[in-house]
């Protein structure tokens, strides 16, 4: 495990979101998964996503899905509770050092972004994730919904990209606020994190749940034909 982290520091995110404490000496990935009661396939797939070695559309077995959900929910909490408020604070500080009119419009742009992100997470946390949990325990859904999610899964990175362009290119040069660099660094960090996040949703969660839906359907049909 320690070697993987040193070679691929991005994987730290997985440990952070799954509440795994450091100081594990030379323990293997498998030993850590057992100690924290994590599904090994889910854990490895998450690490591989951050390591960059996982293929698109990897289907994991049903047993791995709860830990994928745990990771995604924990990440949502992290984005909403830590990363985004931290950036907001920096943007406010930055805005105090530029003409008021400009500051105001940048803050309201970021507020709009926050609203968009919250809406996006809300749909997942309160609608889609509970649906998945439900079919895990009681596989008799009124309707299979993963394709709907796939279609509605919106892109929340566009506005970030716009904000970076604004900060890099369009806030006049003579504005020498130390916060500009700080905001930018944090934005790049958030963007990278969100890229991994949507990758895990689109290419691990969606295919795995769709496979489960398909299995449920096949099983139901078999039962029907037996009757």
């Amino acid at each position, binding site marked *: 495990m320690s070697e993987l982290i040193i070679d691929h520091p991005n994987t730290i995110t997985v440990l952070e979101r799954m509440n795994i404490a450091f100081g594990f000496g030379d323990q293997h990935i498998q030993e850590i998964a057992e100690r924290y009661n994590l599904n090994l396939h889910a854990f490895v797939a998450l690490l591989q996503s951050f390591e960059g070695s996982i293929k698109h559309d990897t289907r994991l077995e049903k047993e791995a899905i709860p830990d994928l959900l745990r990771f995604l929910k924990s990440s949502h909490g992290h984005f909403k509770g830590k990363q985004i408020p931290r950036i907001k604070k920096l943007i406010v500080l930055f805005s105090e050092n530029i003409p008021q009119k400009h500051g105001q419009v940048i803050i309201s742009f970021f507020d*709009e972004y926050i609203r968009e992100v919250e809406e996006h997470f809300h749909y997942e946390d309160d609608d889609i994730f509970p649906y998945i949990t439900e079919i895990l325990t009681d596989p008799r859904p009124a309707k299979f919904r993963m394709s709907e999610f796939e279609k509605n899964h919106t892109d929340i*990175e566009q506005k970030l*990209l716009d904000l970076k362009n604004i900060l890099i290119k369009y806030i006049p040069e003579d504005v020498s606020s130390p916060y500009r660099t700080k905001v930018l660094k944090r934005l790049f960090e958030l963007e990278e994190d969100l890229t991994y996040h949507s990758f895990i949703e689109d290419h691990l969660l969606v295919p795995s749940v769709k496979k489960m839906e398909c299995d449920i359907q096949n099983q139901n049909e078999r039962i029907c034909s037996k009757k």
Partner: protein
Amino acid sequence: MFKKIVVVEKSKIIREGLTTILYTHEFCSKVVCMEDFGEWNVLMRNTVPDLIILGLETMSEGKEKIKYKYKLADDTLFVGIVYQYYNHREVIDLFDEVIFITDSEDTIISKLKKLSSNTNNGRASSSSSEKLTDREKDVLKLLLRGLANKEVADQLSISPHTVVSHRKNIIEKTGIKSLSGLAVYAILNNIADLEDLKQ
């Protein structure tokens, strides 16, 4: 010429050979190589290529699906790599152009040049550092007031098609896609006032 080209090809020899040709002829500022689309996410992050060169089998999903999956621009061009003599028109038609591995360096370059000049004239002329023209500013102002393309066209007595192409240029020049991002741009550059936007 192209800004960013991606080569998706299993064979390392072909991948690297193509990259060398593209760089030697200063054909683009960046070439990203990958064995298959599995590496896309890691290597591309949020950058968007304007041209993809790829093998036949990699294209099996079809252009539209690839564009959707990897969030590519609508006008992304696809060039196929063909290993041997091949005459299936319907396969070759999947691509905007094909290069054969027996093609000479000159042939490859002239095919790509032709492709770039046929489709790229609009793009090439509006290099991203240019400022907005007065007309583009007018269009932007009206869009920010919440007018639809058709309404902007009526107000400025131009065709809706022209509005769309102004819009495209504005996005390309500023690098900003969302309307609210463009509002910030407009205020920072004194194109519009906060008051204008509230109307």
